[in-house]
């Protein structure tokens, strides 16, 4: 990096200042940001949190002036970034100070080749060619994407795209880096790597990182400041533990802390482990699964790929009535391809798929919620969306049943495109679920979902399985898998490498273990489970004490 003389870089310098900032989108009558006043110090690692639709994306975009320069709408107040006001400087005039990675990095790529994409900002900023060469190499190494340099950005996997997008943002050496849900497409290890790389930048070169994220279990241990957003209320800024306590239910360890009365509730696995020290739990509970019912889906020796690239290499999977199976594995392990084969969208090279003793017929005996569920929404209202499916399949259900299953009846007359990403997913799921097929497949269904929406999703999946049907979901969200799955299938390089109860398969994996497993040992999955066991043990101890005293 070129050494620059920074004037006034004492500890009191703020990277970002919001002064009484209010913002209302065009065509909306309530403000997203209302009189927000806060400061983010230089060199902080900041988490922006809040329920879905609370204005996290808006907040992030306001920092570099995309709001209001690109969004339109009513803006008042003042945002300054290293003492440049976004009202006086357009986003491009701030490009040397602040970089931005949007939620869907694929849509934001400008050039075709990875290396050129990373050089793009440098070219725009007029950086000298010799310096540019060095910067590009440094950035390729910093995000570990050197091996991808000659690839086309369109052929990368989701995780690779995310890393390249961050590298492209970092190349010009910004002082502030903004990221909108940077780990939503990454597997646990990939997320860990990206967050560790960001932390290194914060520590080594003092850049300020501001990220919006729902998967708190991933980020809580890295951040040192949090901004909590609530629609129509002033934002809270402070220690992550306090802010999460105020606006969010927090990661599983925090929820456990709240359930069993630890004050203050822990934020990370390490803190929870310290607080749980000396506690004795009964053996982890066995999963209560009614013996699997009638088999619904069976795939044998599936081999599939695209052109020369072999993706699946002899996969056997099955699904029975009442089961919820979580497919897990690295980015690019073949989960999506497997789901596509099971749904009858992709022709396997060999092997075969049987659903309900027949071929898979999409929209009849199998439904699939794709990775971008927005791609199905076309109706004017949420109710119309569900009605369209019911009309097409001639199903027995009603519009209200389908909406009640996901608790979205209050969105009845809203336009699907006006909803937040999380709400859209629930609407798409209601529309797809109305197919009422025996097998429901979901590809990464937790992008943009807050805790509350995730609870609805879990309730919906359980309800589906209890009605004698089956669910198979591909996910990177280990906490969701721990909460809802009755069985976990782990895939690596196109083969099934492990299969069984979530407690066993996830329990002792250093990468895939849920937070409860990390604190209390293999077999523990959810905070509710642990809290119940703690009650039981403390009751038993009390009983014992009562007996000795009497």
């Amino acid at each position, binding site marked *: 990096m070129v050494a620059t003389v920074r004037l006034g870089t004492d500890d009191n310098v703020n990277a970002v200042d919001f002064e009484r900032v209010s913002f209302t989108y065009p065509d909306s009558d309530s403000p997203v940001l209302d009189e927000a006043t806060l400061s983010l110090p230089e060199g902080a690692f900041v988490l922006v949190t809040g329920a879905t639709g609370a204005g996290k994306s808006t907040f992030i975009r306001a920092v570099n002036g995309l709001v209001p320069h690109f969004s339109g709408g009513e803006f008042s107040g003042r945002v300054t970034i290293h003492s440049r006001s976004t009202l006086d400087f357009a986003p491009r005039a701030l490009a040397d100070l602040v970089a931005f990675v949007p939620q869907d990095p694929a849509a*934001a790529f400008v050039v075709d080749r990875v290396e050129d994409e990373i050089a793009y900002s440098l070219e725009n900023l007029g950086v000298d060619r010799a310096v540019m060469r060095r910067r590009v190499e440094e950035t390729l190494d910093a995000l570990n994407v050197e091996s991808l340099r*000659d690839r086309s950005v369109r052929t990368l996997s989701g995780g690779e795209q995310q890393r390249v997008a961050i590298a492209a943002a970092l190349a010009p050496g910004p002082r502030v880096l903004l990221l909108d849900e940077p780990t939503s497409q990454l597997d646990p290890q990939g997320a860990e790597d990206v967050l560790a790389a960001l932390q290194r930048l914060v520590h080594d070169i003092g850049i300020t990182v501001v990220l919006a994220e729902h998967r708190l279990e991933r980020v809580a241990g890295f951040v040192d400041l949090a901004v909590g957003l609530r629609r129509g209320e002033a934002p809270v800024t402070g220690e992550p533990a306090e802010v999460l306590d105020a606006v969010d239910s927090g990661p599983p360890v925090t929820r456990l802390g709240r359930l069993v009365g630890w004050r203050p509730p822990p934020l990370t696995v390490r803190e929870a482990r310290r607080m749980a020290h000396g506690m004795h739990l009964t053996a982890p509970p066995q999963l209560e699964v009614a013996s699997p019912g009638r088999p619904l889906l069976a795939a044998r020796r599936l081999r599939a790929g695209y052109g020369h690239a072999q993706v699946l290499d002899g996969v056997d999977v099955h699904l029975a009535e009442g089961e919820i199976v979580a497919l897990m594995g690295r980015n690019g392990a073949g989960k999506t391809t497997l789901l596509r084969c099971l749904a009858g969208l992709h022709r396997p090279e060999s092997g075969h798929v049987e659903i309900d003793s027949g071929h898979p017929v999409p929209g009849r005996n199998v439904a699939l919620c794709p990775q971008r569920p927005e791609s199905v*929404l076309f109706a004017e209202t949420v109710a119309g969306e569900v009605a369209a499916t019911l009309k097409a399949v001639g199903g027995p259900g009603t519009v209200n049943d389908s909406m009640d299953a996901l608790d979205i009846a209050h969105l009845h007359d809203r336009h699907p495109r006006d909803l937040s990403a999380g709400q859209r997913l629930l609407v798409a799921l209601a529309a797809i679920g109305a197919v009422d097929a025996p097998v429901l497949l979901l590809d990464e269904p937790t992008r943009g979902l807050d805790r509350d929406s995730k609870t609805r999703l879990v309730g919906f999946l359980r309800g589906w399985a209890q009605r004698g049907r089956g669910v198979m979901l591909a996910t990177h969200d280990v906490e969701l898998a721990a909460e809802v799955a009755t069985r976990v299938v782990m895939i690596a390089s196109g083969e099934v490498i492990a299969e069984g109860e979530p407690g066993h398969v996830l329990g002792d994996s250093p990468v895939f273990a849920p937070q409860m497993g990390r604190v209390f040992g293999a077999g523990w999955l959810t905070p509710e489970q642990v809290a119940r066991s703690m009650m039981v043990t403390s009751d038993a101890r009390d009983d014992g004490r009562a007996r000795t005293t009497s």
Partner: protein
Amino acid sequence: MHPGAWLLWALSAGFVAISTTNPFYLLPLLGVAWVVHAACHRSGPQARSWRIFLIFGVLTICTRTALVVFLPDIQLGSVVEAALEGLRLAVLLTVFGTYNTVSDPFGVLRLAPRRFHEPALAAALALSIAPRTIAAVSTVREAQRLRGIEIGRFRSLPALAVPVLETGMEEAVVLAESMDARGHGRGRRTRYRPERWSRRSSTVALASAAAVAVVVWALLRADPSLAMSAFPITWPRVSPVVLAAVLVLSLPAWLPQSASERTTT
């Protein structure tokens, strides 16, 4: 290969296509477009878009012919004439399709002098819309099929069109935001590792120029083989020189990629 050489190739092939209605020139040119696409296309979803351009081409032939068929006092000659006009447009479309699959439109953008940066950007964005839309169409079709809505009937058109257009709009906004946030349009601009003009680029550029020169020469001479007569319908003659000019455009497919050229797979 240098994006400038590809642009030159596409312009030359397009020029040859619109200069003739002779099927014995047009069909070989269609073959040339296919061979070049097959040998040189980049990896990624845009490679699939070639087929769509071909389908559009065939549709063009059909509609042009169909329009004439429904005229009163129909003559065989006018049908043939319309079909040949259609073929000419179809070949032009396929050439454009090949250009789209072999070269990155943004590569040309980077060559544009700074003064023309804005119009070149608009052109590059417009060029990238076709492959993006095509990718979106297949995603949405599939997704709707999975909820039981078969796209095919006229009534189900909104189920395809609305998500494709909405997603396209949203993506365009994200792209514009991203470009602005990354400093696009600031004054001074430098260039990172300019694409090298290889010997292969020179050879292709020379061949393209030669093909154009031959066709211009034929046009100036009013070479009768360029147009096929429909009144009366006669088999057109073929000038070996012009046919050679058409075939020489397939050169990019036969020249090996040199090791110094960076791959994009």
